[in-house]
Every structure is written in C-alpha cells, then in structure tokens.
C-alpha cells in the first residue's frame, strides 16, 4: 500500500463516510485511492471553497468532524475562508491538502503554496507530512484536535511523494482518547448558585458552545427548573425549546426586542458557551450595565475578553449545568416566572417595512415559508439581510437544525453548507435560504445538487441589491449606493434549469402560499426564486457600536 491508501484507511478508522473535494495534481494519489472505495464517498464540488463550506455544513448539522480535500497551491488557498469561518464558529473540520514533492518545496514549484504558513491564523492546528509512515498517526491526531476541547479546523498538508511512497500496512491507528475536560471550580459553582438565588431579573444567554457535547438537554432542564427567561445568539438558535414561553428568541443587532430589552434590564446574566461578540454587545461598556455576569465556557480565553465576568465557570456546558443544577437543588430552588412573564411583554411583533400590496415582501415570504416548513427540517442561510430575516423567523428546535456563518459572515456559505447538511442528514428536508449576492458566489454548486440528486431546496430572496450593505448606505452613508445595485441580475430560473434543477418563480404575493407549497412538495432539488421589493430593510436594528437605547424599528 502507499501513503494515499494509508490516508484513506485513517479516514475510515475515524468513521468518515463523506469527503468533499476537488482534485488536482498533488492530491491525485489520494483520488486514485478513493476510486471505487467501498465506504468513503467522495463528493465532487465545483470550487474548493464549496468543499470546505460543505464539510462545515456536514459538521455543524451532525456534530461529526467534516472532511474536505484539495490540491496544492490554488486548491489549498481556496480553502482559507472556509477554514477561518469554521475557526470563528468552532466547527470541527479536517482539511487535507496535497503538496508538491518535498524536493520542490521552497522552489516556487508549480502550484506550490506554503499553506501551513497561510493557514496559521485560520486553523486550530496545521501540520505538514512528508513521510508516508506518519500519515496514519498524524490523521488520528488531527481528528482528536479538531473535535477536542473547543472544536475547530485542522489542516493536514501531505506532499505528493509521501502519498505515493510505499508504506507498511498500518496496524490499528493510535487512538487519541478524549482528555477529560476542565470541570468548573466548586467554589465558583457555589458562587454562581448564590447569585442566581439572589437575583431578581436574571436572563440566560446560550451561544454556539451548545453545539458541543450534549448541552441542549441540561440547558433546557436548567431554564425550566428556574422558570428563567432565556435567549440565544444566532449560532445557538434552536437550543431553547421553541414553544417555551420563556424563550425570548435571538439577541443582538437584529435580535428580538424582548431578548435585547430583557438582557439590558437584567440584574444577572448567565452566559453559556457564548463569547459576547460585538454584534451581541454593541457597546460593551453599556451592555447590561446593571447585571452581574456568570460566564461559562470550555475556552477560558473567552473570559473577560469583552465583558468582565463576576463568576467564571471553566468547563463543558453539560458538566457546568449539571453541577450548577445540583448546587441549586441543595436548597430552595428559586423561580423567576413573574420576571419571565414581564420580559415577554418587552417585545411585541417584529417591525417590518410596508411595501405595496402587489409587491413581494421578503419578510412576508419568509413568514409564509417558515409556517409551512417541516419541523425537523435543516435550514442553512447565506449572509446578509435574508440571514437576519430568517433568523428572526425560523423556528428550529435543535441547534444543529439551523446553521449560518455567524462569526465570519462569509457570503457564499449557504448553498454548499446545505449540500454538506444533506449528506449528513439523509431523509431530512434541507433548505438553503440565500440572497442574490451570496447565491452568485456559489451557484455552481447547482451542478453538485444535480449530479448527486441532493434534495436541497433553495429559497432565493432576490432584491436586486447587496441588501445589507445597501441598508447601511441608506441609514449611515447618506444614501450613496456605492456598488450595491444588482438590478442586472441574470435570469436565475434559467440558470437553475440549465443545471437541470426545477425552478419556481414567485413575484406575486397573491400566489405566495400555493407557490411555496408546490416548491416544498417538489421532489429533488429545486429553486424558489422570490423577486422581492428592492429596499425592504431589516428591523429592528441596533446600530453597530450602540446600545438598546438606539434601537431602530424603521428609518427615522
């Protein structure tokens, strides 16, 4: 066997069933090994950027490590954005890149790129392998690092001569058993419990850390035990019971008013697996200024980075919440139902721009779509206005059912992420909600949908603008619409049909429900092209760097 076979065996040993990738010179030995392989399936995407986003979609919606591969040079560098996207959102990935022969490294050889240097700041770890005998052990370590602690992406760069070199059949690969994670300090748990007992207006915030481990169930028990009002960042939508009246929804710049106002008025924040991103805090020194902060996270780096915590709980969320509940149950368990009921009244309906009756409104389309979508469906989004409208309206009941590029905000994410989600969740409906800008960054993946008959359904919110940038230009740049007009968009329906994808056009509000129903019921992949009003904005909005006091519900 050769190094490429050893690589494939190592992937099989990790339980990898799907690899998203794109071939090229330096990675060819691996593709040769993959040819006709019995258990590991290669999915050919149409750009390496889509490979890493698809692997992320697979990982985000399954909890397993996503795997992608690319060749050296441009193939490897095309992975960079997706790797950073995964790094920002703590998504476990292993990216495998071919590298030029070892003797050519450093000579500016054809398709040579120092991808380890390039990805130093975009990965949790990277490594170059030049010795075929090290491939199996290195892969095992890469997977352990990707999934361990706070998850993240790992890049393994393997020279083509190592992939081709003969190697002894590896025995059972070295196992990297999960190290026991940190357990929160007992004194800190007692302190946190005492602060919860003493609080009058506590609010829990859950972040993307809930995706790690089995934190959802203990989180739901925790908030139910206390009758606690709770909300989530965009990366944790679905963590709270969607029908729980104490669930205040999404926090942040375009979050629900009740969530933002309750947090602003809280006297105690219980922040769980979230990192106080600037889209959540706005102006940190004014954020929840009357609240004490309990901050729980697996990554101590997040403590006191943006917001100073009064109590830090370093450990996995499931361990932390279990310990906290046990401590609370040692005495009378407080209840906060009255405060939760008051917090619910702080919101009100989502504001939206009025558009003429005969013009399609994006918010109306998404309201109607989410009213019909299957409860167990997986939804991915791209980045922009539609992302926020969808986050406000989606009703996921598990954090792995709804995924979006939260931290990095990478346009082009939505469709390839849905491809990965579909392979991770066979039999479940998968929807990609995209805008006309982001869709044009990755629409070549329609070919992937067609080739594998992946039943992803695409809701295209086409407002002929880079809408979020346009909105900021309208509100903050004196209506100087620089480079945001997309009124010369192509015929998206014709593009879909050219790829062999069914296409539905929706431009008349009167037939919205029937068209959406036909689209949802269509077999196989399909595109719903929604020709929407061009200047509808996302409300509410807390302008960047400001506070809830500056919340906008319409243009001034």
């Amino acid at each position: 066997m050769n190094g490429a076979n050893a690589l494939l065996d190592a992937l099989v040993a990790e339980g990898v069933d799907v690899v998203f990738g794109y071939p090229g010179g330096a990675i060819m030995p691996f593709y040769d090994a993959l040819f006709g392989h019995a258990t590991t399936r290669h999915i050919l995407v149409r750009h390496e950027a889509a490979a890493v986003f698809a692997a992320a979609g697979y990982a985000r919606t399954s909890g397993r490590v996503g795997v992608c591969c690319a060749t050296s040079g441009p193939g490897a560098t095309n992975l960079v954005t997706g790797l950073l996207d995964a790094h920002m959102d703590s998504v476990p990935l292993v990216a495998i890149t071919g590298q030029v022969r070892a003797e050519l490294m450093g000579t500016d050889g054809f398709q040579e790129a120092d991808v380890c240097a390039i990805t130093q700041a975009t990965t949790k770890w990277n490594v170059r392998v030049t010795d075929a005998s090290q491939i199996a052990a290195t892969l095992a370590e890469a997977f352990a690092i990707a999934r361990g602690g706070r998850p993240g992406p790992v890049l393994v760069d393997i020279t083509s001569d190592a992939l081709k070199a003969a190697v002894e059949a590896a025995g059972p690969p070295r196992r990297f058993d999960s190290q026991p994670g940190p357990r929160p300090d007992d004194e800190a748990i007692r302190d946190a419990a005492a602060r919860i007992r003493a609080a009058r207006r506590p609010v829990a915030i859950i972040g993307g850390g809930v995706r790690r481990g089995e934190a959802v169930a203990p989180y739901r028990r925790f908030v139910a035990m206390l009758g606690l009002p709770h909300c989530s960042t965009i990366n944790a939508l679905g963590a709270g019971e969607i029908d729980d009246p104490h669930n205040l929804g999404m926090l942040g710049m375009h979050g629900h008013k009740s969530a933002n106002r309750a947090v602003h008025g809280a006297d105690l924040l219980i922040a769980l697996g979230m990192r106080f991103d600037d889209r959540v805090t706005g102006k940190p020194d004014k954020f929840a200024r009357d609240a004490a902060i309990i901050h729980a996270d697996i990554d101590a780096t997040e403590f006191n980075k943006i917001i100073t915590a009064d109590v830090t709980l370093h450990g996995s969320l499931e361990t932390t919440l279990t310990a906290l509940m046990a401590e609370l149950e040692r005495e009378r368990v407080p209840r906060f139902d009255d405060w939760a009921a008051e917090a619910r009244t702080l919101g009100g309906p989502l504001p939206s721009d009025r558009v003429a009756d005969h013009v399609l409104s994006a918010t109306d389309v998404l309201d109607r779509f989410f009213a019909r979508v299957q409860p167990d469906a997986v939804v991915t989004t791209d980045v922009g206005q539609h992302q926020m409208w969808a986050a406000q309206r989606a009703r996921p009941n598990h954090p792995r059912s709804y995924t979006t590029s939260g931290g990095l905000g990478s346009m082009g994410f939505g469709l390839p992420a849905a491809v990965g989600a579909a392979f991770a969740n066979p039999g479940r409906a998968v929807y990609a909600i995209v805008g006309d800008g982001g869709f044009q960054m990755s629409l070549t993946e329609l070919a992937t949908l067609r080739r594998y008959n992946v039943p992803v359904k695409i809701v295209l919110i086409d407002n002929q603008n880079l809408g979020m940038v346009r909105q900021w230009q309208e509100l903050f740049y004196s209506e100087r619409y620089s480079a945001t007009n997309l009124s010369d968009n192509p015929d998206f329906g014709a593009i879909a049909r050219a790829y062999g994808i069914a296409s539905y056009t929706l431009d008349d509000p009167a037939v919205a429900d029937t068209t959406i129903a036909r689209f949802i019921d269509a077999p196989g992949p399909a595109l719903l092209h929604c020709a929407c009003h061009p200047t509808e904005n996302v409300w509410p909005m807390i302008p960047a760097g400001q506070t809830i006091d500056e919340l906008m519900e319409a243009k001034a």
Partner: protein
Amino acid sequence: MTCDVSLRDSRTLARIINLAHRFTCDTVAVDANKSGTATRVRFAFEGPPIALQRLRAQIDRIIASEFAG
C-alpha cells in the same frame, strides 16, 4: 509582560509573534532554545494591558491545543 512557554512545534513561535501584532502589542524580545523535542521560548511583549491580557490568554490556548492529542 514576559511569557515563558514550551513549544512542541517551533512554528508556534512565529504564530505567537503574529498574534501579538494582531493584538496591537510589540514583541520586544525573544529568546528561543531547542531542547529535545521542545522549544523553550521566553517572550517579552509591550502593549495596552487589555491587549496583553488577551494575548496571554490566546497563548495559553495555543499551547493547550498543541498538546491536546
């Protein structure tokens, strides 16, 4: 701020210097010595206190990741 670390991967030295730059800190001294499989490094950084605090936390995280396996 001085910072003594033991690196399994000597490339991490460069990563830490780049991190310092990202956090608006200056790397004012580096003393590195390979010893067996580890590289022992003493860094000295200057910068705003909050930036130095974040840098220190990130360095700890990187070192922890290096030995996560």
